């Protein structure tokens, strides 16, 4: 195969690379860049919410003609929350998370030389890059970027008369998202094909690490639901630009009746949430997969209930495609549909509970190596439980009536999918950084980063539940027009303080990440004493991942602390150490776990 080792130029190695490891790093760095933008936006609008009448130099400096004397305008406030949501959900937690870790780990943990199609993989990244560029450009449109909320419900998103952001800003948003969806689909198909076809000898489906199960199922949800969002976006483009009436009907605005007849915004809501809800799991499942792997490795224990974990992933994935209506209980759709969606939605609590309990049981009687990655994984379990539980309130249609679109919802989804998924992403970065860059990230900075972040995450989102229960609607530029909300002004200040400190603390991570690439401690081949295949590759990246033959798999990935007599905790470790990599054959008389 020596003819494949042609000379690499700078361009083929670092830019138009077809190597999954490089593509994964490209996804990660782009995701981090977008994440910084979105995080910064959230800090700006938190300033507005805490001190609505106060002038800030930073707002004057960044918001240009969208502010007056250091106070942001209502339009740009809505634009900031819209773009914050869009970037976080899609660019950071979908592309940044799945793109990075599916690309890195699917070939490495399955024992494959690369993705099924390196070329398509490269295209997937560059489409993502292009869509990111367009999204960033849209921020500089004169009338402001898209500002109809990240859910872009028409008619608001369709009519520039209704809000200035629905002009050129919205057009760029739609174009960017259409390209983004293409990127996701190409990536997802590649992941599925690779998992099904390129597993090394002995890597049965039932021996795959839970990370791979999560990425695999996530990719399938993406393939099922992203095309629907694409159609929704296309029809919206038609309504906006070519005068069709898919979503619009009977509208009187700016003193005239528009020509639209017969469309319905409810149709858009159905199409949007048919992706929008599975999207939550597209974001969350990879984070849960990463957590499973990291908790098991660092607890030096097998993940508890491997089969149950796989089945919950599949159950969650299946259910996630039939619950979208719980975002629409009060949209005007038939109440009977609401009943059906309440039923399916609350069912998701069962596999989710199984996962949470299994994580806790994995911690029980472990020998926990509290690396930063492990702490972030434990943090994920904590926020996943906190955020997941309030889902029982929101998923119940009768209760949703009164807290729909209040800050209670904001608190719920930020904890359960925002903070949890970002914790999963951080955990993954700290854990697999040595696999990406051959060096380790600094642990002291990692610890500071974790504790400040989790304290701030709870400081921001726990009180938010209560202002939601006080009836405060989300997406309000200021609450000062409602004396009934005067008593929550102080809480908004506290939330903002936590948000700002938590936001600034991410500098710890950024510095750690970028400095460690060059100056971090050099990693050994298997720094965490892990069982999975990626730690059998050389530290230095090579094309094809393994020099010589591909590894052969003989056991599942979770033989940590396995004993000679599995039922006797006092007996010796089976192989003389507390981990048994997947490549080690079963001993004579050893029972597979």
């Amino acid at each position: 195969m020596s003819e494949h080792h042609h000379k690499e130029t700078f361009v083929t190695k670092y830019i138009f690379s077809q190597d999954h490891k490089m593509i994964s790093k490209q996804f990660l760095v782009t995701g981090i860049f977008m994440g910084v933008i979105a995080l910064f936006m959230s800090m700006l609008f938190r300033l507005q919410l805490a001190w609505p009448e106060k002038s800030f130099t930073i707002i004057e400096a960044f918001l240009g003609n969208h502010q007056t004397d250091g106070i942001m305008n209502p339009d740009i406030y809505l634009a900031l929350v819209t773009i914050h949501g869009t970037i976080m959900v899609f660019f950071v937690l979908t592309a940044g998370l799945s793109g990075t870790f599916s690309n890195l780990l699917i070939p490495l943990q399955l024992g494959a030389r690369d993705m099924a199609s390196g070329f398509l993989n490269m295209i997937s990244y560059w489409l993502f890059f292009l869509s990111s560029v367009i999204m960033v450009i849209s921020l500089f449109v004169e009338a402001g970027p898209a500002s109809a909320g990240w859910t872009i419900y028409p008619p608001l998103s369709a009519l520039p008369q209704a809000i200035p952001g629905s002009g050129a800003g919205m057009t760029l948003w739609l174009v960017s998202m259409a390209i983004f969806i293409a990127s996701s689909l190409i990536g997802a198909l590649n992941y599925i094909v690779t998992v099904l076809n390129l597993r090394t000898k002995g890597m049965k489906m039932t021996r795959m690490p839970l990370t791979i199960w999560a990425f695999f199922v996530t990719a399938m949800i993406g393939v099922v639901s992203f095309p629907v969002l694409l159609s929704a976006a296309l029809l919206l483009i038609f309504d906006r630009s070519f005068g069709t009436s898919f979503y619009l009907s009977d509208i009187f605005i700016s003193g005239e009746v528009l020509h639209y007849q017969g469309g319905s915004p409810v149709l858009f809501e159905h199409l949007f949430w048919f992706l929008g809800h599975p999207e939550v799991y597209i974001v969350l499942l990879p984070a849960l997969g990463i957590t499973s792997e990291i908790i098991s490795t660092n607890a030096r224990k097998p993940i508890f209930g491997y089969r149950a974990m796989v089945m919950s992933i599949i159950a969650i994935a299946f259910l996630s495609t039939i619950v979208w209506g719980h975002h629409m209980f009060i949209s005007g759709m038939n109440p009977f549909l609401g009943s059906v969606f309440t039923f399916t939605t609350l069912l998701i609590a069962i596999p989710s509970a199984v996962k949470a309990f299994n994580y806790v049981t994995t911690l029980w009687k472990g020998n926990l190596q509290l690396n930063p990655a492990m702490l972030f994984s434990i943090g994920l379990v904590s926020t996943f439980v906190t955020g997941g539980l309030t889902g029982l309130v929101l998923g119940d249609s009768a209760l949703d009536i009164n807290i729909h679109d209040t800050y209670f919802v904001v608190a719920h989804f930020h904890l359960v999918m925002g903070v949890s998924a970002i914790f999963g992403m951080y955990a993954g970065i700290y854990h697999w950084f040595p696999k990406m860059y051959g060096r380790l990230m600094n642990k002291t900075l990692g610890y500071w980063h974790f504790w400040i972040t989790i304290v701030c995450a709870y400081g921001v989102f726990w009180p938010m539940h209560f202002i939601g229960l006080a009836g405060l609607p989300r997406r309000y530029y200021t609450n000062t027009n409602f004396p009934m909300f005067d008593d929550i002004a102080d809480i908004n200040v506290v939330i903002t303080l936590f948000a700002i400190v938590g936001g600034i603390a991410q500098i710890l991570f950024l510095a750690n990440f970028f400095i460690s690439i060059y100056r971090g401690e050099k990693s050994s081949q298997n720094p965490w004493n892990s069982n999975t295949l990626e730690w059998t590759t050389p530290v230095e990246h090579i094309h094809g991942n393994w020099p010589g033959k591909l590894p052969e798999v003989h056991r599942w990935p979770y033989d940590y602390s396995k004993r000679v007599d599995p039922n006797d905790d006092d007996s010796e470790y089976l192989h003389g150490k507390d981990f048994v990599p997947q490549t080690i054959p079963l001993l004579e008389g050893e029972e597979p776990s």
Partner: protein
Amino acid sequence: MLALFYIFIGVAIGVSFWQITRILNLRESVANDNDNAKQGKYALLFMAFLYAMMIYCLIAMNVLMLPESASIEGEHDDNLFNITFWLIGVVQFGMQFLIFYFTFKYRGNKNNKAKFYADSHKLEAIWTITPAVVLVVLIGYGLWQWNNVMDLSDEKDAIVIEVYSQQFRWDARYAGKDNMLGYGNVNFIKGINTMGVDMSDKNSQDDKQVTELYLPKGRKIHFKFRSQDVLHSAYMPHFRAQMNCVPGMVTEFGFTPKYTTEEMRQQSEVVDKTREINKIRKEKGEDPYEFDYLLLCNKICGASHYNMQMKITVVEQEEYDKWIAEQPTLSTVITQ
């Protein structure tokens, strides 16, 4: 507060730089027993913080909560909410304890060995079946209540009111003596006919357009919602009521007011909340606040979304009759 804010930022940035400079000196990057011991203790400390905050918020923010439901239908919402809230509260406190206590208790040490414990069907069965059983109860009660609230089919005695939304105001139309709303469509909007009522429809003649809602206590109100431009959402938090207003279609919701505005002002939770609010308003030199029911927009609808409200006043039947009689019918207001 702002000074505190700048101090916070200063400290955060200071700590960041101090830590970042230390990175150059530290080389060991995998957790050792010393780290495990320290981080395990921090996990306990964090748990203390989390519990303190959770409990503090539960107690201190109780006064912020909406008062008890002001509609008869909403009583079961409050019930269901309380049941759900206690349930998830118990699970939350228990689970967070396990997570952080285990992190502390089983912190790693060279001399320890982890237990090899890969599976237990019994345990898994327990935590599959228990949530399932609990959910059956929650779903059952929830669906019963949902049908209860959403079923508007059998309400002969209900008062029909149209709530009409546009950027950025609310209007309302009472159905008048015949209790039938005349047909409305944006094509009929002209001059003072701002709600687009078809005046050739005989049901329109006795309709009454108003800018504030008056509702009689104890009568079922059947709301019909229309929107003129974009999506809005009619949110009446005190009545546990909300429905989107969708251009191109009519949506519905109904409830029966339980307390008059005056009665609600005497209610102890409302008295407490009002006192708190007025303390704050006094400090800022603003006029005192008096409780009123409100209808708020709760679906992003444009720049002034944050200021789209309508006052609702609940009164006794006699007072309502007097008020409604004073309102002019559309046929007298709009002459074609």
